[in-house]
């Protein structure tokens, strides 16, 4: 199999798995997310923290001595995270959840998706226009 086909297949399989997991766990349900953020239900929060703890162990065992790209701290880290946190509270969606919501039939998630698309485009436009806050992005350092 040529590398391009393999990449498409692998990305596709992980997209499918991740979409299903986010739906089965309730991350794509606004009510569940809102209850997590208002600290009135700790199921998702515990799952989230539990995942970080398990991955810590996993990376320690599997990735010792291997070089994994590390995100760098920069001027955009804090203000960007504040904007993202606000957006997540308003929509119940992070960049993957909005897609999973749409998959579940929440047609209104299209508004969120248009917003995300525009937001990504606008930031990249500004960043390349001399604002130069950060160019390293998720998974593509």
């Amino acid at each position: 199999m040529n590398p391009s086909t393999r990449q498409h297949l692998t990305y596709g399989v992980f997209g499918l798995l991740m979409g299903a997991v986010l739906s089965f766990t309730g991350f794509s349900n606004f009510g569940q997310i809102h209850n997590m953020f208002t600290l009135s239900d700790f199921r998702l929060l515990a799952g989230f923290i539990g995942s970080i703890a398990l991955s810590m162990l996993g990376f320690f065992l599997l990735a010792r001595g291997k070089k994994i790209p590390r995100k760098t701290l920069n001027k955009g880290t804090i203000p960007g995270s504040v904007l993202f946190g606000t957006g997540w509270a308003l929509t119940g969606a992070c960049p993957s959840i909005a897609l999973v919501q749409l998959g579940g039939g929440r047609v209104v998630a299209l508004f969120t998706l248009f917003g995300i698309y525009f937001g990504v485009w606008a930031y990249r436009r500004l960043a390349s226009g001399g604002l130069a806050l950060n160019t390293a992005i998720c998974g593509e350092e």
Partner: protein
Amino acid sequence: MAYWSWWVTALALSGLTLGFWWALQRPLGVSGSWARVVLRSNDKILNQAEAGFRNNPQLFNDALMRATVEEFGEEAVQALLTKRAGQAGSGAVIAGSALPVRTPWTAHFTFLAMLVAGGAIAAADSGRLGLHFSMGEVYRQLFGQGVAAWLTLFVGGVLVGFGTQMAGGCTSGHALSGAPRLVPASLLATAVFFTTAVVVSIVISFAATVGGVS
């Protein structure tokens, strides 16, 4: 059907994070895929430039040397070369042949499209699939419905898109894959976006309650 318990959730999210890294040798990161899809027109330009270098490694070396000389000055480079010439086994390094292969943007698009498909399959399996023209009852109580709700979703979406690019990552890249490796930027980003979401959610919830009473 009830949602998965906290520990099944933890196992599944961690399995995805580790599995993705294991299979693709790069950390999971959805906002990165968004950027590649939105900026897909850049791929063509970059591929063209890289193809030139790949077919002619010497050209790449020359370009690299020129940039190095511009950055550090001719004297420093000359001194380094003289020093290295005296060392055993130092030949010309052809860097052009070691260029990494770029994942095509269509693979990232496949990833995003399959998130929709995965969500649809899981929703169908748990009996939740159906056409919904609202985000649900909780959303209606907090933000109303119709245009008000749609506008909130769009504005929130812009904040998510802009914010994740500015912060260099999102839930998957910073929280799920960066925090377990104790990457400082990821720990900070995770703490900030989570705390912000908690504060904003509590304020909105409070405002809706007060607004509902009066």
